[in-house]
């Protein structure tokens, strides 16, 4: 079966770096902050490539990004990794999950994609919403937190990482699948692919051309950074440790 896989990718700050907040708390300080493809989306790109590589049919992998010109570099990363096409939806405004999903739903329909593979969440806002919203808007089945995919006669069999264990569902295509960490380990771009990707064109669409107005759903009032310096509290013994972990740190 010929298939088109659409992979929405988000450009996010590299969260291995120290995140700083602007003095007025209005957002993060972007100076010197390197950006990367959201790691969960990189897993989605990798999975799409593996599907293409393991298929006897034509499979097209389309990476889609929404953002400003700065985004080109990260889309080119997806091309270098092996995506067939990359598309930038030009939109200067910062978007919440709802508006991302609305834009994607238009693109998915325009492109007549058979499968949307995307990260379960973006590691900047950690919302874990866009995939579910997109599936709802398209009225497509969804399988979130995928750790294994297999094509079957009836669609796609997905192993899902849930709190209770590994759940297996079969979703009929077209469908939205969001990826969890254990699905695969993304590859690095090969030297020939990096050079090839430099020559590829990134397709561009202006947000205004989609016939949508932004409908803000979440308003950021303030941001603060948790104190980064740790001050080790030496506990007297096991009892104190348990009390502090439970009542103070609230992690157990």
């Amino acid at each position, binding site marked *: 079966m010929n298939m088109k896989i659409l992979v929405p990718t988000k450009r996010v700050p590299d969260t291995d770096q*120290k995140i700083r907040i602007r003095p007025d708390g209005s957002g993060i300080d972007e100076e*010197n902050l390197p950006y990367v*493809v959201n790691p969960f989306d*990189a897993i989605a790109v990798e999975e799409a490539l593996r599907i293409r590589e393991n298929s006897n049919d034509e499979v097209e992998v389309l990476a889609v990004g929404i953002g400003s010109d700065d985004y080109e570099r990260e889309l080119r*990363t997806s091309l270098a*990794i092996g995506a067939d096409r990359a598309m930038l939806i030009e939109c200067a405004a910062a978007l919440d999950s709802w508006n991302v999903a609305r834009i994607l739903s238009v693109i998915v329909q325009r492109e007549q994609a058979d499968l949307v593979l995307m990260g379960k969440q973006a590691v900047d806002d950690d919302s874990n919403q866009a995939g579910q919203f997109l599936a709802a808007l398209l009225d497509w089945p969804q399988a979130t937190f995928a750790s294994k995919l297999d094509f079957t006669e009836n669609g796609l069999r997905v192993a899902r990482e849930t709190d209770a264990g590994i759940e297996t569902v079969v979703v009929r295509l077209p469908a939205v699948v969001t990826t969890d960490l254990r699905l695969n380990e993304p590859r*690095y*771009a*090969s*030297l020939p692919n990096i050079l090839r990707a430099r020559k590829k064109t990134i397709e561009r669409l202006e947000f205004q051309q989609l016939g949508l107005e932004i409908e803000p759903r979440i308003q950021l009032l303030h941001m603060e950074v948790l104190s980064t310096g740790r001050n080790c509290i030496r506990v007297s013994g096991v009892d104190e440790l348990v009390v502090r972990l439970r009542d103070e740190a609230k992690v157990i």
Partner: protein
Amino acid sequence: MTQTADVIVIGGGVAGLSTAMQLALRGTDVVVVERERLGNGSTGRAAGLLGQLRGTAESTRMLMDGVEIVKDLEQRANVEIFVQTGSLRIAETPERKREIIDLVEMGKSINFDIDHLPIDEVSSKLPYMRTDDLLDACYCPTDGHLQPAELVSAYIRIGKSHGVTFRPNCPVGEMIVEGGKVKGVLTSEGPLYAPVVVNAGGPWSYLLAELTGTCLPTAALGHCYLTTRPTETNSVDRLSPAVRDRHLRLYTRPESGGLIVGMYGEEAVEYEMKDLPVDFDMSAMTTRRDDIHVARLIYAAQQRFPWINERTPMTITTGIMTFTPDGKPFCGKVSEIEGLYHCAGFCGHGIVQSPTIGVIMADLIRKGETDYDIAAIEADRYFEIPGFQDRAEVKTKCYDMHAGYYGRVEGKAD
């Protein structure tokens, strides 16, 4: 909080830690100030390969003595630092073959344990390596690697037990220099006074020198290596020999069942350390999936280890090295400023040089002399020499040195 000491060492990497430990073992009161955590920076990213046979007899002697020092540290700190895997140099071109013939000859002349190794024996020692294109190889059974984490912990532990004061998270903002003499440093926690200050700032060393109004011709260059994660088919014995393939510009050693493969390529990322955030943490450096240097590294690694490709489960370690115009470090006294010593610029070989360098630095500081011939690593060797005073020129020279680091074909050692 200590306000004064005999010696202040700036930089808690292996160069500074070894110097501090050796000074303390000789009864000197030392404070180590480190901008971040001890053992972070280049030290924390290093692979630690120890190939003792170098271009000159003196640098070979320094490394061989280093192994003896490490054996003593291992006993004192009760930790395994040196992993004696043996090492191989391999040749796939006539020039490289010539290099190996010369190397074996030179090694034998100074009684270093080295010999040619037939290719079929190379294959049996390293079944995971491509050997069908090799023309020659030589094997040094006493080589291996120093484990950086364990080496750092030994320096700290022994240093501490002999009175070294460690001040992590304590960056130096200014050098206190009066009348041509160094008096101390101004840190984030206030002033600290000592008649001797050692600049062991690694990639930051040139900035520290600038604080005294002097020039230290070092440059900061990026480097990366990969570590494969073992699978059932690709696991590497922890005592497999290290390999140097100068034609492909690769070095490798075993690590936790996988293989470290690094490359001194022709190109490297240049860093201007003062442009990095004040709280820059080298351990947080990451690489993009489409990093061209990583792609080149993987491409070269695949030539020698055909099972490695861009899909191999692996980790990329990225860091910053300190390069110098001639590939040699700067160790010793600075003539312009009394009391100032440099100990930096190890060009990716700081881990293995540090044991002996600590002894050299301690002797220079305490006695003004050392048993080693340090002409090649004198801190002052570019003093007032035109072409080595200007940052841009220095950077170009260091960059060129790095580009030729593995690529250059060595003539017969003299």
